[in-house]
């Protein structure tokens, strides 16, 4: 009886699972160090909730993504978590905005949001 109920509920359960999957945040981990982000390119889906998990290997860096109004500082020994649900497709630059030395100007990356 219990098993049958599960079978009977199978279709709606599958739909619910799909919705849950669509709503569950995807973690994107990005590490910073002079003068690069690793990875410096990440691809996510439009409308997919995500959490950027930011860490640094050496010193304070900034993480700024102007297109999504994101700006945080990434401090050694801490994880900085930023929630985001991309609402537009395209390639969006993120960059370090805490001056960290010669090479700072090249410290950036790209978030690609696909349909």
């Amino acid at each position, binding site marked *: 009886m219990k098993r049958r109920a599960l079978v009977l509920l199978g279709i709606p359960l599958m739909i619910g699972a799909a919705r849950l999957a669509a709503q569950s945040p995807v973690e994107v981990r990005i590490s910073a160090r002079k003068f690069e982000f690793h990875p410096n390119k990440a691809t996510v889906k439009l409308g997919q909730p995500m959490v950027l998990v930011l860490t640094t290997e050496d010193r304070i860096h900034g993480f*700024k993504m*102007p*297109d999504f109004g994101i700006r945080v500082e990434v401090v050694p020994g801490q994880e900085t978590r930023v929630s985001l649900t991309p609402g537009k497709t395209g390639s969006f*630059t993120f*960059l370090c905005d805490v*001056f960290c030395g010669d090479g700072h*100007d090249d410290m950036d990356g790209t978030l690609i949001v696909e349909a």
Partner: protein
Amino acid sequence: MLQRDRRDFLKLAGVAGVTFTAGLFADRQASAQAAGDFHFVQFSDTHWGYKGAANPDAENTLAKAVATVNGLANPPDFIVFTGDLTHTTDDPKERRARMQRFKEIVSALRVKDVRFMPGEHDASLDRGEAYKEFFGAVNYTFDHKGVHFIALDNTTDPAAKLGDEQLAWLAADLKQRKTDDRIVVLTHRPLFDLKPDWDWTTADGAKAIDLLMPYTNVVVFYGHIHQENHHMTGHIAHHAAKSLIFPLTAPGSQPKRAPLPYDAAQPGLGTRDVTVGAKVSFTELPVTKS
């Protein structure tokens, strides 16, 4: 905005470069003429200590520009340097050595009234510690022939902020001004969001612009972006200067900012001669006068 830029700036052919006339100080024409026109020269982004392909002549460019300004038939009343005097280094000793050598080179300027400002290359790694040893205050005001000058520091905070303390200082200074006083702001980074994803902005620059907005005769001269750029925020004009090390790509012209390839003729480098009177106009000076 582009249409506004074109309307507000009349482009004229100049002998040494290109002259812009900004329609500023119009309501102070009579008093400005009474006080007399004057001019000053803006140096920016000299990056002393840089070594790289973007300027194989880096060791000589600053000295050449000093000689060109010394050769002006009508010497300026004073000279300003809007930041990035030196190229950054992680080594505090080398940072001071670069500042020392920079001071030696610019000591050859015949005009001795010289005002300095920090850029992030000078000041962001040690929050201005070495800079202050060599050049003094990072933000200050001075008055010249009826014009109030305000030097704002948006670089000793490595996150490119003016900061609440400096904004309060600015507000207190502006309270002493009449709304039609002539005000020239000098700074390193753009106060407005020129290109935030290239870090061409000041994190809290909008707060400074808000404070300046009630004043009807304000113009801002800055550096950082290594090229001329002219922009209006309301009635406030913002003029970026060329550098003396290498020009950078125009904002948004390609995905990433980068130095332009070196050109021995150096058309992308130079200083700026600013005339202040009933209007503000300026002429771009090449590194070496032909």
